[in-house]
């Protein structure tokens, strides 16, 4: 199966992007360099096209009750204009996907991972009650652009209509216009920086991307690709579906217990998660390399010569200045502050020392 072209594919190529296959799409990996784009987002701002993400609307009189059963977080607490991070699980607690749930005056919108889109939709349809809830997959006609970094507000505010952008709190959203294009403006992101995500119609996405880039360049805004998105989200401690969380992992072990609300009433996977909470199978930890080297997914985490776990995400943290990783270990085997080993190369003799540290690796200055 060949990879799908994203709506902005031609624009990315024109901007010099190196395109790579990701989740069934040809996506921009980088335009200049990962380092440069990473630093732009930390110090100024970066513009990402993440249109591969899936958008599924949930409507109808019983939409709230349906979502309460579908996901682990408490959708009942979600006000109109708010967004919530959550996961949905199978009966055995295995994570089907992590997602954002938006509530607006007309109902809810779930934003899911591109690689999980088809499975998610099948799963969501299977959980539907006979009536009272409607699902509408809007992924094909929706594009998602993210402006991330400390200058995001300063860059976007003059381009926006419909109210003061700065008045939108973190994890809130509203309808508005940017450069005249109707968008849903959300103060969310996947980088650990302040920023906005803009949902728009696919026909308007190119105009919006180019317009924001043109107006933002003078303030240091750069187009940024998946490479920087990965190093930024890793520093911010955000899990990546397919690596850090999978169908084989439940959210308690993944350190996502804060999105599991066992007291909200019944939901799919609740029983399994009650068990996981009583006795977690694994611990999710952060590792910072003490010397040179870059930890990679699937490499073992060692206590002496003994394997105690495995890395699920690893890369170089440009803002941390060291190789960093996240992964699972046996509970109690790697307390914070302790030192463990990480196999750095195929050669088993090459083991790097790493310190177990709290997540996130990077926190933006406040």
């Amino acid at each position, binding site marked *: 199966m060949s990879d799908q072209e994203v709506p902005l594919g031609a624009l990315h190529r024109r901007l010099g992007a*190196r395109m790579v296959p990701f989740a069934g799409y040809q996506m921009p*990996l*980088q335009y200049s*360099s*990962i*380092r440069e784009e990473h630093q732009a987002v930390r110090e100024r701002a970066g513009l990402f096209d993440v249109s591969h993400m899936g958008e599924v609307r949930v409507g109808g009189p019983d939409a709230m009750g349906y979502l309460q059963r579908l996901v682990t977080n408490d959708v009942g607490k979600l006000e109109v204009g708010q967004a919530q991070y959550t996961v949905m699980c199978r009966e055995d607690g295995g994570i089907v996907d992590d997602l954002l749930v938006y509530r607006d005056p007309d109902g809810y919108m779930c934003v899911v991972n591109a690689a999980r889109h088809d499975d998610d939709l099948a799963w969501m349809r299977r959980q539907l009650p006979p009536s009272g809830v409607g699902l509408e997959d809007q992924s094909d006609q929706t594009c998602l652009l993210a402006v991330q970094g400390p200058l995001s507000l300063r860059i976007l505010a003059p381009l926006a209509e419909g109210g003061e952008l700065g008045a939108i709190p973190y994890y809130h959203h509203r309808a508005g216009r940017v450069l005249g294009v109707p968008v849903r403006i959300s103060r969310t992101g996947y980088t650990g920086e302040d920023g906005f995500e803009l949902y728009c119609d696919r026909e308007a996405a190119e105009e919006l991307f180019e317009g924001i880039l043109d107006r933002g360049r003078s303030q240091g805004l750069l187009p940024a690709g998946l*490479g920087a998105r990965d*190093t930024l989200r890793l520093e911010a401690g955000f899990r990546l579906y397919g690596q850090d969380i999978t169908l084989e992992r439940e959210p308690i072990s993944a350190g996502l217990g804060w999105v599991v609300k066992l007291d909200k009433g019944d939901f799919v996977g609740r029983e399994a998660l009650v068990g996981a909470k009583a006795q977690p199978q694994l611990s999710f930890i952060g590792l910072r390399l003490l010397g*040179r*080297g*870059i930890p990679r997914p699937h490499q073992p985490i060692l206590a002496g010569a003994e394997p105690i776990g495995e890395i699920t995400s690893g*890369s*170089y943290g440009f803002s941390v200045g060291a190789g960093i990783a996240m992964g699972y270990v046996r509970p109690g085997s790697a307390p914070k502050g302790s030192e463990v080993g990480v196999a*750095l*190369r195929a050669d088993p003799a090459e083991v790097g020392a790493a310190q177990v540290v709290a997540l996130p690796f990077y926190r933006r200055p406040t």
Partner: protein
Amino acid sequence: MSDPNLVRFTKTHEWVRPEGTGEAVIGISDHAQAQLGDVIFLELPAPGAHLAAGQRFGAVESVKAASDLYSPVSGEVLDVNQVAVTAPEIVNQDPQGEGWLLRVRLEGEIPTGLLDPLAYDAFAEGDSH
């Protein structure tokens, strides 16, 4: 006869440029840096070390992968590019210029079988598909 001081390439994507004084400079190709992406760490031998043609002499680690380096020639390391060691992004920005890795004193002949720039480009083109 081709220019003896012409830069030549290995099939493992290193280059060597004889300097006409019995010395030569070694680095990685533009194709290699593009394939690797952002270079983060370089592991290079110290001055005084001896390289053997075709043998591993170090490694380059990028965000994407770690890759061994193989010497195009035999020789003694005279100098290591400290700029590249401390700011390895220079290897991405100018791999065949300021981003050089080692200066060596050649021992023996430049191996035949290294590729001239045209032959290397053709090889690299095929290698990336």
